[in-house]
């Protein structure tokens, strides 16, 4: 008891000594808007939460013996990409160089200070923009995990992820969102990452799924989700976090953020309902797994459109995305036979492509004057630009992922052997067991 009190007093003293100067710290610009800054900081935290949320969303879907491997992959990404981002990922993605990527001028956040950087956001500290974007850089590689679940070697996964983040995510991010990015300059509209995040990860997913091969004994031993409540919990965290993902991409506490929030929520709701209805019609009963999948698909689809479309188009986008994704997952996948285990391609790629196209259809300057009008508002050219952006994303992601996969496969070998796969990744890759048998 006594020792604890001493510790408390010491902690307060130390905190006071260090917090004091920091409180008077390094604020320079008169232009920093406290509302915008508070909002984007909170949104950054919301998006961070999506990575553990995704971990449980995916984790509940795999067999019991592999849950830790999913959680581990997500959490290690959180660790390693966070470091990569502040060291050079942010610089490669957003430093204002024209070309393949941004270069290393902002290595270690050199030049990325606490004053606003007007080209990206004039009312929040530059580091707030940086950290907000960092959370996107973290979750994007995590999405791919769904494709190769239950059979990828951990060491290979780690190397693959770092290379993919550096050579696929960072350049694509640069092209679509950075100053000097050629897709940005072409006029492609991607509010919060339909192409950069979802199509990108989704294509990487199908490529890795095809290269790594189907799980063993898939037909005789159909794997069922071992913990659907985890899947639902994960979905809830994703939906919640997505408000930060989309509404935060307005980079300010303003009308566009409000629009993004409303359409994000509505699209998710419409898509969840739509998937339930589809299952009811086709399979006789709506399932929890279906509503969860639908809601996520809706969130994916509205991502590129959130700052450009209004609520009625959002409902349409949500209702339709479930049709496309449901078809991709329950008709296309069994027919073509690829083992995209957790439907990273079926939900994120298909949903993201529909979202990017829908942006080209429904975008309206009445919603966001800084955007553009889409096909249904008299500007067919935007749809073409969106299609180009999607095709570029697909090609670049496919080729990049293929090359990186092959390199890592040669160096380390991507897939675990058959015995390891049967025993499970938790025990073989991490020597760890999630659920104890004995006390």
């Amino acid at each position: 008891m006594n020792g604890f009190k001493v510790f408390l007093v010491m902690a307060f003293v130390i905190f006071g000594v260090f917090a004091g100067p920091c409180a008077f710290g390094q604020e320079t610009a008169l232009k920093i808007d406290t509302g915008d800054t508070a909002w984007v900081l909170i949104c950054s935290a919301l998006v961070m939460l999506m990575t553990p949320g995704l971990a449980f969303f995916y984790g509940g879907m795999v067999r019991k013996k592999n849950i830790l491997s999913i959680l581990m992959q997500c959490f290690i990404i959180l660790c390693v990409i966070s470091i990569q981002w502040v060291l050079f990922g942010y610089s490669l993605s957003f430093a204002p160089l024209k070309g393949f990527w941004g270069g290393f001028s902002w290595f270690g956040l050199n030049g990325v200070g606490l004053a606003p950087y007007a080209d990206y956001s004039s009312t929040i500290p530059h580091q707030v923009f940086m950290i907000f974007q960092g959370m996107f850089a973290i979750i994007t590689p995590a999405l791919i995990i769904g494709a190769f679940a239950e059979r990828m070697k951990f060491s290979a996964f780690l190397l693959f992820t770092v290379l993919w983040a550096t050579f696929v995510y960072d350049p694509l991010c640069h092209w679509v969102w950075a100053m000097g990015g050629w897709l940005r300059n072409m006029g492609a509209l991607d509010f919060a990452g339909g192409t950069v995040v979802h199509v990108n990860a989704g294509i990487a997913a199908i490529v890795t799924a095809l290269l790594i091969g189907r799980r063993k004994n898939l037909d005789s031993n159909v794997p069922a989700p071992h913990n659907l409540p985890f899947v639902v919990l994960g979905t809830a965290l994703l939906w919640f976090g997505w408000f930060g993902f989309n509404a935060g991409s307005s980079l300010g506490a303003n009308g566009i953020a409000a629009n993004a929030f409303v359409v994000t929520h509505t699209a998710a709701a419409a898509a969840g309902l739509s998937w339930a209805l589809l299952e009811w019609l086709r399979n006789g009963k709506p399932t929890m797994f279906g509503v969860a999948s639908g809601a996520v698909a809706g969130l994916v689809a509205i991502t590129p459109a959130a700052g450009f479309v209004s609520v009625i188009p959002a409902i349409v986008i949500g209702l339709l995305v479930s049709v496309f994704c449901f078809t991709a997952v329950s008709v296309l996948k069994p027919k073509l036979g690829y083992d995209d285990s957790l439907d990273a391609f079926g939900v994120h790629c298909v949903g993201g492509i529909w979202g990017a196209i829908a942006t080209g259809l429904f975008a309206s300057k009445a919603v966001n004057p800084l955007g553009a009008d889409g096909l249904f508002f008299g500007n067919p050219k935007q749809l073409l630009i969106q299609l180009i952006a999607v095709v570029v994303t697909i090609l670049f992601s496919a080729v990049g992922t293929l090359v990186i996969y092959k390199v890592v496969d040669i160096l380390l070998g991507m897939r675990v052997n058959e015995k390891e796969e049967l025993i499970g990744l938790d025990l073989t890759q991490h020597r760890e067991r999630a659920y104890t048998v004995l006390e």
Partner: protein
Amino acid sequence: MKKIEAIVRSEKVSDIRNALEKINYTGLTLTQVDGHGNQKGTIQKWKGVEHKITIIPKTKIEVVVDDGDVEKIVETIADEARTGELGDGKIFVYAVEAVMRIRTGQKGACAL
């Protein structure tokens, strides 16, 4: 001494316990089990993939009793567990060689 092992519907366990208590049998062991006899199960369908659910959860009740009480207890359990539908379960009776009450070290029938 005999062990009565009854594999029954999980939702019937409360009724069975109450019925056994009424005839002064309060000791029992419960285990959650999975399996099937002739019950067909159902087909679950997620995202286009069909999962045949033929392994069905039940509850196993184990009681160890005097030879003379076997018939009474088997009937009591069966009456409560029976619904008339496929899946009511089965009761098995085994011979028990020895019994010990761990707390006191007592052996034999008085340990029941």
